[in-house]
């Protein structure tokens, strides 16, 4: 099976190609240049370097959210265009699950945290269990937009070792240091941020779990938050 995978949910731009169980290549840039300018040229460079024939693609995996609204849409729209041209389906990988798969098979709780602005993070809590020679992923706390302190309280209550990763780690390093009461690790550099290889790993797991890919036309990002205008309107209607 051949997969294209990408993640543009945060500042990281990352693309990967998988061919029959081999990660042909991954190209990741953590730089402030806009995804609109970088993502597709990166994919083109990677395809050229790996001599990858686009026509052999079976599915396209993408970090489907949460994340930066604009970042998610740049990835989503590009994926929809490619999937439609190739007539192949999309595997919508929850961003936080894709991140968590960087620690595939570890025993600790995995807590990806993405800076969500407005004093919140996008986060969930995951853990892996080994079953025979396979690994299953479990959701301990569903993905949500919430304050960092709330997630820390939850982790303290769970009382198990934790690994934190994601772009929220730097932003919330101090509060983590001050408030965490259970042992924790901060992910090392090479596993800290989004990786399209990890998105591909989660996509393959999802297929094995029987989660069906979607058609290009049916795919849309999962923002976890309504737009500001919708939120304000709902508040206004609720108040009346």
């Amino acid at each position, binding site marked *: 099976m051949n997969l294209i995978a990408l993640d543009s949910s945060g500042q990281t731009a990352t693309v990967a190609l998988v061919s029959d169980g081999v990660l042909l290549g991954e190209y990741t840039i953590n730089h402030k240049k806009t995804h609109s300018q970088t993502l*597709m*040229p990166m994919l083109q460079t990677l395809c050229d370097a790996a001599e990858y024939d686009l026509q052999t693609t079976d599915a396209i995996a993408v970090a489907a959210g949460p994340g930066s*609204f604009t970042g998610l*849409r*740049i990835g989503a*729209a590009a994926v*929809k*265009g490619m999937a439609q041209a190739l007539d192949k389906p999309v595997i919508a990988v929850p961003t936080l699950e894709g991140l968590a798969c960087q620690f595939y098979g570890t025993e600790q709780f995995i807590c990806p945290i993405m800076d969500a602005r407005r004093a919140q993070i996008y986060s969930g809590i995951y853990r892996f269990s080994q079953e025979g020679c396979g690994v299953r992923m479990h959701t301990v706390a569903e993905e949500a937009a919430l304050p960092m302190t709330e997630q820390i309280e939850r982790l303290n209550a769970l009382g198990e070792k934790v690994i934190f990763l994601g772009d929220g780690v730097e932003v919330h390093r101090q509060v983590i240091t001050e408030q965490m009461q259970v042992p924790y690790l901060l992910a090392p550099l090479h596993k800290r941020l989004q990786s399209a290889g990890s998105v591909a790993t989660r996509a393959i797991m999802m297929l094995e779990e029987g989660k069906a890919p979607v058609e290009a036309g049916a795919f849309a990002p999962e923002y976890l938050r309504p737009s500001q*205008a919708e939120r304000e309107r709902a508040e206004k209607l609720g108040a009346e």
Partner: protein
Amino acid sequence: MSGKPIRILAIESSCDETAAAVVEDGRKVISNIISSQIDIHTLYGGVVPEIASRKHTERICQVVEEALKAADMTIADVDAVAVTYGPGLVGALLVGVSYAKGLAFAAQKPLIGVHHIEGHISANYIDHPELEPPFPCLVVSGGHTHLVRVKDYGEYEVLGRTRDDAAGEAFDKVARAIGLGYPGGPKIDAVSDEGNPEAIAFPRAKVADSVYDFSFSGLKSAVLNYLNSCNMSGTEVNRADVAASFQKAVVDVLVEHAMTALEEGGEKTFALAGGVASNRHLRKAFEEACAKRGIAFYRPAPIFCTDNAAMIGAAAYYEYIKGVRHGLDLNAVPNLKLGERI
């Protein structure tokens, strides 16, 4: 044209319309699909950028699929993919641009970025095989008021633009003030039929240092002041008269500037473009002004006045035959200037 026809799949998402079209040789529209979001934005009294961007993302595949299906083609049959990359709402533009890049990359087709206003101007080429540059063109829409000299295909000189509100924006604001709702243009156009355009003397604003630039914020304020003074004195407002008088003030200025440009340039052809070009009173005023001077007057059919992708396909054709191609680093440029090439 000799040889094989050039067919371009064009995509437009700069504001609140998700649109796709297949256009042959820049003039023949094979298919033209427009998915409007106006019902949603009406709830908010105007276009909400984040909602527009989300809706574009949801709709774009279906709209393109419908355009190809209506043309009885697949992506493999098109010669190039064209997309609006500015000006417009950046988030909305990014959806079309990112999608078009993905599509062009995977289908191995050339990519052409198109300026939205150049699209509006080029809508005049559709169904008008005899129309050729040079000619002056007035582009009036919700976001733009440009008086442009089209020197050649893809070559433009901006003669005048609005210093403040776009003409369409002034329509929206005045419509809101007299309780007609959004979008204001069509509503004012309709209600004006029952009003007297000479009832109230609203100002015809001039910009001191330019014969071609426009200013509509003073006119808008004059309408608001008028409504306010009626309110204070307890005089009943005749909405139809206000609408008709306001509209006449806008139309008079637009016609006057355009006729000045024609006198200066000496062309025998004039074109109108943009969403407000569907306004019946505006069209009639231009028809009369042009007829009086022996000027051939062009305007797109109403379906090509509103934001659409056929006009993008028309503009893209002339870029295509000049050899213009964009790379996969094409970005949305919300403030892209007319005639600018990035």
